[in-house]
């Protein structure tokens, strides 16, 4: 199966993208976002994460968290390219919400076949969910939570939107024998569905740099788990490209905001009696950011389209876009602050929200070098 030239990006996807841009522009202008999340600058203060809950309610009403779920589960069954476009707008708005995490959870559940339907139905009615899968070294293969006799034990690290989630989709190592200490190659992996208020589950919130996310270590102590899929290694593996694509979409959108905001500043701000943008040091920097964004954006729709049309190419396309978007985010963050000069270094300038969100995203779900090394395994 090949890909359509236009990525299968049809009218309904374009409409979704456009209306999402308007939605965020109307409901979450940058000054309001800043007022909400940047109230307490003190870097030594503990994690406390205000976020626009009402907005999330409206997103649920618009059906956004259920876009990916099939109609049989109460979803809309939109193509991946449409969801990528939505998340691009989400990133452009730097919106703090469990939208990305919920859609990523859906992506994993979709890979579970019918076994994922019950959980997906909950997601489709607006239950915020997130994936708990990383160990302390951020390995993707669930080394630190295990499942035994239907109970979860251990800790999942770097869980995104943990404070907003009502459900956790937990990747756990299934212990077969008595020995529950050392993980081994032969352990199987299970996916479990856990309520946030389940007994034995507790959050240890991280104090993070990013003001538009929340993150926690989730501790499981004999938590009764609903097993979605007992032997989930293949499903998990096949869902990973979608997770990378969705995470990349957020970075591409945020980078575009960084570019446009800096371009506006370079048009208005004068130095030596000329607009900043006159100077090639600024102009060429911004052009390089634009080029990087466009490369990532083109790879984004190509990879999303692969998820829709050409799943056999999805892994390599997804590695490409996450590697590219990560580098783009780093470049856009650095250049946006540097080109703003002094004002860009202040808390009152909105840039820092995006700078921090991008830094956060860059190192989640594999950094650029890791994705390139995986790609090399495929292509060399």
């Amino acid at each position: 199966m090949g890909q359509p030239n236009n990525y299968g990006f049809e009218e309904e996807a374009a409409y979704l993208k456009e209306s999402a841009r308007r939605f965020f522009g109307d409901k979450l202008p940058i000054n309001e976002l800043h007022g909400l999340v940047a109230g307490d600058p003190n870097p030594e203060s503990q994690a406390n994460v205000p976020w626009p809950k009402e907005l999330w309610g409206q997103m649920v009403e618009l059906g956004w968290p259920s876009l990916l779920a099939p109609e049989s589960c109460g979803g809309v069954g939109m193509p991946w390219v449409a969801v990528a476009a939505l998340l691009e707008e989400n990133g452009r708005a730097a919106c703090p919400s469990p939208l990305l995490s919920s859609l990523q959870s859906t992506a994993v559940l979709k890979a579970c076949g019918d076994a994922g339907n019950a959980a997906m139905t909950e997601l489709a009615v607006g239950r915020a969910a997130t994936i708990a899968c990383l160990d302390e070294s951020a390995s993707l293969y669930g080394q630190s939570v295990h499942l035994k006799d239907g109970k979860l034990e251990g800790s999942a690290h770097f869980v995104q939107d943990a404070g907003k989630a009502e459900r956790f989709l937990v990747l756990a190592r299934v212990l077969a024998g008595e020995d529950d200490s050392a993980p081994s190659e032969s352990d199987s992996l299970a996916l479990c569905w856990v309520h946030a208020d389940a007994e034995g589950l507790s959050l240890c919130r991280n104090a993070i740099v990013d003001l538009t996310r929340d993150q926690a270590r989730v501790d499981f102590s004999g938590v009764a788990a609903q097993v979605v899929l007992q032997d989930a290694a293949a499903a998990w593996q096949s869902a990973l490209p979608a997770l990378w694509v969705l995470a990349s979409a957020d970075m591409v959108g945020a980078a575009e905001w960084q570019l446009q905001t800096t371009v506006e500043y370079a048009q208005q701000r004068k130095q030596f009696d000329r607009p900043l943008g006159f100077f090639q040091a600024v102009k060429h920097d911004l052009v390089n950011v634009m080029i990087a964004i466009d490369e990532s954006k083109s790879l984004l729709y190509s990879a999303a389209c692969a998820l829709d049309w050409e799943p056999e190419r999805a892994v390599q396309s997804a590695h490409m876009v996450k590697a590219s978007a990560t580098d783009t985010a780093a470049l856009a963050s650095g250049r946006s602050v540097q080109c703003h000069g002094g004002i860009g270094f202040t808390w009152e300038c909105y840039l820092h929200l995006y700078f921090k969100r991008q830094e956060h995203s860059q190192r989640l779900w594999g950094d650029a070098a890791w994705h390139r090394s995986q790609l090399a395994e495929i292509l060399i």
Partner: protein
Amino acid sequence: MTEQERKDSPEQVEFRAYCRNWIQGNHPGQPSSRLPLSPLEIMTREQLAYLQSWQKSAYDAGLVGCDYPTEVGGGGRTDCQRVANEELIAAKTPFYPNVIGLGMAAPTVFHHGSDELKQRLLPRLFSGEDIWCQGFSEPGAGSDLASVQTFAERSGDTWRINGHKVWTSLAHFAEWMILLLRTDKSHKYDGLSYFVVPIASRIGQGVTVRPLIKMTGETGFNEVIFEDLEVSDAYRLDELGKGWQVAMTTLLHERGAGGLTTPRAGGLKSDAALTVTARSAIELAKNTRRGADQASADPLLRDRLMKQVIREQAFAENQRRARVPALNDHPMRLPLQTKLLATELAQDTSALALDIAGPSASLYLADDAAPARGQWPLAYMNSYGMTIAAGTSEIQRNILGERVLGLAKSK
């Protein structure tokens, strides 16, 4: 079915089948001597003759100029050139030699020339019988194109031209030149006009072509000196004083779809020449020993190779996305990046290949032990021609910053 094919119109479906069939029976096979890396590096009459004969046979079969009207020698089809090119690429045929003619002169003459000029010039341009060159750059006007000094003085219906053009690829083989010159010294932009002028037929009669040698040692671009060359006013394109606007048409075709860098009206590479791609660099890495291992096992080289693979894929996807309006906020944002990206990509890929080759990168064309017959150092050096010619990378970034991002002009 390939990606392209799925969206073919009925006309394209039929034409694609026709092309595929024709190419199968008419592939010219390998030439007896090495072909250059691109049409701009053609060095010998022998190379030229082989390539001209190939272009002529393709034109006769209807694979060149497909989308131009039949009155000017075209095929009268709709969006079929792309189809022909895709099939030629897939079949790995050689490129056409008349690359400046097809990529830049044809659209310029077509949009700005008189009917008489079009009917007279375009058929032999498409067939490759008349090679074309471009007279834009001058010793004092490289990046600053509008400062050209070549001057045409009118007397009745005749213009007398004096001046000095540089960087004119293919001029030593050319019958015709598209020529930007000055007809009024008092206005910088509005003093420019645009002509087509004969070259080969006027050598010694007002035209001198002096080959310049590139840093690679190859010939292929030239100085052209005009001393009292007389041409008829009928060779003028568009109105007097509209030269700058006509030149923009030329450059748009050059920059947009990359006449110099990407196949446009069927400018395809021969199998015999190296293609400067990440894939070729990966092959080199696999065939290069680094201590006990292949170079392709080196994690740093793997990382750099994948960076190039990703940039290449992004470049291809840019061209695809450019045609999806809903995914473009500014219509020129992607097209204006094409030349810059393609040329810097080729530069970085060939530099990487030299690092992969290690000390063997020192070996050049005449050395039997040279990897890829010494074409990697050749490609790396030639890449600077690419990032300099037709608006340096710096100028491309200015254009993008000014025309797309709306930043103040850097002049």
